């Protein structure tokens, strides 16, 4: 009834882009706002 699934901690895309020198290019051309992932949330409490 209890099942474990191991997770790996990998390199974030942010780090990959930084290493490739692409991170500033990314931020220059794209607006990044993690809040846009949650359009259905109640923003001001319930």
């Amino acid at each position, binding site marked *: 009834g209890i*099942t474990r*699934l191991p997770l790996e901690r990998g390199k974030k895309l942010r780090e990959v882009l*930084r290493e490739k020198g*692409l991170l500033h290019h990314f931020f220059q051309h*794209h607006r990044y706002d*993690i*809040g846009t992932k949650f359009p259905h949330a*109640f*923003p001001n409490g319930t």
Partner: protein
Amino acid sequence: EVATEPLLNTLDMEYYGTISIGTPPQDFTVVFDTGSSNLWVPSNSCTSLACQNHQMFNPSQSSTYKSTGQNLSIQYGTGNMEGIVGSDTVTVASLVDTNQLFGLSTTEPGQFFVHVKFDGVLGLGYPNLAADGITPVFDNLVNESLLEENLFSVYLSRETTGSVVIFGGIDESYFTGSINWIFVSYQGYWQISMDSIIVNSQEIACSGGCQAIVDTGTSLVAGPPSGISNIQSAVGARQDTYGESNASKNTSPHFPHLRFLAQMQNDQGPCISSFQNTSGDLWILGDVFIRVYYSIFDRANNRVGLAKAI
């Protein structure tokens, strides 16, 4: 001009595991994301470079695959995933989830996705977030009576290995002390009410209460600019031109007591603060928070349990 990029939230995902789909099984690396509710992986009919760089599901190689003829568009951050809906057996560790509906992306979202290590996303949010009413994987596991309890829990390690998502139970070896339970305030995301944010005994954000989402699919802690600014000041971080905040590794006396190790990304390279602005009033408690607190997502009682992780 600022353009948007689909699936931008993939910028800060860092924990993933392997599942398989089909008969015989085809393996995929997916992010277990409590901030969404769909399962999707790339389809072999996707010709974009990003798809070619990842594992792609081939329906013709699976004897248990069923086509639904249904198109799918999952809104995901600033963009969306376009694809089709199929049904097949999904195996999560030893759990065999039959007739699971899932998305097969036919266009891969964004040029930067080519650099992402994982192939897709497995959402662990509530069903009402799922596109087209598709039953999420976790709900199917419960419906098929495969789990001992209607909950799952997550332990995130700072190391490359050792992290785990536990379906159907709680493992006391991953935490010390008691579990603090907080009721879910909105059953969609794992959203809770937070009373305040205190640094060094002083309330510096979330005065009067605020809403927070516990999200395994985000690595940072994010919140409204005013609150984040106060926290950045408290940890001695400065925001650079592109919104990233840098801090000197030599200013540890200024970091909040006990929070430095948990909330600064102190790996090799620049020391980047783990706090980030969002445009809304929500707080997002991502992996840096979950690494500190073993997190229990209790669907049976609609509550989140937090206990001090080992």
